Every structure is written in structure tokens, then in C-alpha cells.
């Protein structure tokens, strides 16, 4: 056995073991920052990742144009109808905002201010494993992005939270990933709970709103937003819609299954919230 190991790379095995320990220790010590070795590899390969993502997006675009023209045409008509509807709603909102300002002045209340600082980034890679749901972005600590920053779409829908940052790249743990844990609130009933990733639901592209209050009367289609509790994440970011309400196997708590509003497999560009301040 000794001779076999000596002839068949025991020294290489020892080196592999030491490298494993080194990488593990560095990952532990660095926390949300990528360890130096990963940082170098991912920084060097970032242009390759970006190039492949751009090429694949272009090919998908051409394919969609050629083979889904009718579908795109229908979608365009639907979107035009939605824009008209939204323009009408915007007119109503502007009126409501004016009225809100007047009422605040009347009651001598300070205006509610929500300051968010954004950084745009491209999605250059998607989950490489079936055991987690992540995205790789084209920007990192060099652009001021830090672990724990929220990532949203152009319409403000929550995509996930930055899990690890390198110099010019970062990894986002999406809303459906098993390590997601943040405060959530149902917009219609103001029922608060904890948004959590669940392994079984992750593979269906969904997540949980756990620990719902006993009297919460949720219906399918209710909108769920981030609650901002703990001041770790901004409040009011749309997460998704309630699909159904279930009781935990223990029978003690109820939870809602949430269908995220974000389409993770078609994301191209996202916005990282680098800083936020909400003043009531």
C-alpha cells in the first residue's frame, strides 16, 4: 500500500489536502470578500465571462427574433396596452402625491424620503450548481459593492442579495436560494413574516413567507414586499405574489408560498443598492 501510494502520487495528494485546507481557511476568514486566490481567478476570467454572456445573449436575441416573432408581436401589443394603463395610473398617482403633500403640510409631518444609491451591473453567469441559486455580476468591490447589498431589476423588483465580492465581480444569492432570510410584508393586509428560501421550493423557482401571524387572511395573488425590519435591507421592494397558504408540518406556524416577481433566467442587467436611507 505504502509503495502504491508512493508511486501513485501521495505527494500530490498531500499538496491537494494542504490546498483544500488553505482555501477553506481563507474562505472562513474573508467572510463576504472573496479569498485572494478566487479573486485573482475570477478577476482574470471576468472578460471571458462577459464575452460569453454577451455572445449568448446575442444568439438568444437572434433566435427569439427568428423563431418567436409572432409571440414578440403579441407581447408588444400587450405591453403597449399596459403602458397606456400605467400612464393613466401615473396621472392618478401624481394627483395623490400632491394631495399627500398637502395633508402632510396640514398635519405638519416631514415628508417620507427614500434615498437609494445604485450601481448598474450585467449578469455574466448563472447558477452552476443544482444545489443553489446564484448569479454572477460584472461589478464588484472596485465599484463599491459589498456583501449584503440588495440587487433589484429596473422595475425595482428584488433579485437577491450580494453574497461575495471580488475586485470586478460579485456573486448574488437570489431570492429563492436556501440562505435567503429577510423580513417580508403582505401589501394588502400588512401581515409581516420572514422571507426564507426552501430547498424543495427553490427547484420550483419559489420561496416561503414564514411565521405568518395567526389571524393573517392572505389570498392568492397578494403582493409581498420587503419589510425593511432590522434596517439591513430597504423596505418596500416587491418580492412576488402569494400562491397559497399552508401550515407547517409541526402544525404550529403557517407559511405562504411566494412566486417571485423576477424572472431569474432572463435577467441581463440589474441594479445593486449600494446605500439606502429611509426617513419617515
Amino acid at each position, binding site marked *: 500500500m505504502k509503495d502504491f501510494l508512493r508511486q501513485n502520487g501521495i505527494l*500530490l495528494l498531500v499538496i491537494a489536502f494542504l490546498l*483544500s485546507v488553505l482555501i477553506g481557511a481563507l474562505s472562513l476568514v474573508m467572510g463576504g470578500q472573496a479569498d485572494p486566490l478566487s479573486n485573482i481567478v475570477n478577476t482574470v476570467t471576468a472578460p*471571458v*465571462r462577459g464575452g460569453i454572456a454577451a455572445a449568448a445573449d446575442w444568439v438568444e436575441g437572434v433566435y427569439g427574433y427568428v423563431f418567436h416573432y409572432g409571440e414578440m408581436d403579441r407581447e408588444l401589443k400587450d405591453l403597449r396596452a399596459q403602458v397606456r394603463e400605467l400612464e393613466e395610473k401615473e396621472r392618478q398617482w401624481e394627483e395623490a402625491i400632491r394631495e399627500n403633500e398637502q395633508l402632510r403640510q396640514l398635519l405638519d409631518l416631514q415628508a417620507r424620503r427614500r434615498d437609494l444609491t445604485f450601481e448598474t451591473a450585467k449578469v455574466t*453567469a448563472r447558477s*452552476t450548481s443544482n*444545489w443553489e441559486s446564484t448569479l454572477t455580476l460584472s461589478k464588484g468591490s472596485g465599484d463599491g459593492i459589498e456583501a449584503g447589498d440588495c440587487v433589484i431589476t429596473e422595475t425595482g423588483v428584488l433579485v437577491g442579495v450580494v453574497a*461575495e465580492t471580488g475586485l470586478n465581480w460579485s456573486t448574488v444569492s437570489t431570492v429563492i436560494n*436556501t440562505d435567503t432570510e429577510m423580513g417580508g410584508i403582505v401589501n394588502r393586509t400588512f401581515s409581516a413574516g420572514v422571507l426564507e428560501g426552501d*430547498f424543495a421550493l427553490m427547484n420550483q423557482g419559489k420561496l416561503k413567507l414564514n411565521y405568518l401571524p395567526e389571524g393573517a387572511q392572505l389570498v392568492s395573488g397578494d403582493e409581498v414586499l420587503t419589510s425593511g425590519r432590522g434596517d439591513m435591507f430597504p423596505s418596500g421592494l416587491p418580492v412576488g405574489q402569494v400562491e397559497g397558504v399552508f401550515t407547517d408540518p409541526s402544525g404550529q406556524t403557517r407559511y405562504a408560498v411566494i412566486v417571485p416577481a423576477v424572472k431569474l433566467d432572463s435577467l441581463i442587467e440589474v441594479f445593486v443598492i449600494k446605500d439606502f436611507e429611509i426617513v419617515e
Partner: protein
Amino acid sequence: MTRRDFIHKWFVYALGLLPVWVLDAYILPRYPLFGAVVPMLLPLAAAAVAVLEGAYAGTGFGMAVGLLWELAYPGGFGGQVFFLALAGMAMGAVSQYALSQSFPGCLICSAGVLGLLDCLRVARMLFINAAGLSDLLQVAVPEFLWSLAWTPLVWLLFRAIYNRVGGTKLA
């Protein structure tokens, strides 16, 4: 084999690993099978080279593949380097002494390493109580089968490299 031949040989193997890595990391995750499963190609590359080149080279190539897996993919914790080096050594030895340096041998070794990887992942998830066994198997089994289906392609690639520069051909 001179040092130059040695470097030339392993440079060509590294070039062979490149398309496998690009496919595994950047192309296939965009198009998951049935909207859910993406295959693991890197262990197949380690298996193919270990079967073709034997235990010693299998250990080294396994270590290199493990390093690539840890450093270029998100969420690494170091274990893959040692695991794939050990697996490379075991697969090389098994193919040298028990199986043959052929496609069936590679298929058996690939099934072994993929099965072991999935078993370890399932055990870890069960240990941390992340999900039930049936939920975990719903991911592990399709992942295992879908990954294994890529073995012929990876084998053909590395077999072609072996035919040009493998073994002591450059000597």
C-alpha cells in the same frame, strides 16, 4: 520524456479542459434540462484523464480540476481539491488494475465519482437539515443521470488528446 514534452503534454490537456469548463460554467447553466437540471462536467474530465493516464497523472489532473472548481465557481470551501485528487488517484488505479483504459471503464469511473459527489451533497444537506431525502433525491438523481449522459463527449475529447500527446507518445 523531457521536461519540454511533459509541459507540452499537460498544456494540451489543459487546453482540452477549457471547452469543458466554458460549457459547464457559462453555457449549460443558461439552458437547464426541463428548466431545472444542469450537468457537472468537471468530474467527468477528471475521470477521463485518470482512466487514460493512470493513478499518478489522475491525482495531479484531479487536483488541477478541483482547484479550478474551487476558485472559478461560487461558494467553494476547499474540499473539492482534495476530493478530486483522491478520486483521480482511485479512478486511475482502478482502471489500471481492475478495469480497462476504455470508454466502459471511464463510464464506470464517472458514475462512481458523480455518485459519490451527489451522495456527499445529500448527506451534507441531510446533516444540516436543509431538506427531506425525497426532495434531495429529486435533484441528485436527475443531476447524476444528466451528467453521466455527457461522458461520451468528454471521453472523446480527452481520448483524442491522449492519442496525440498522451502516455509516452512525446517521448
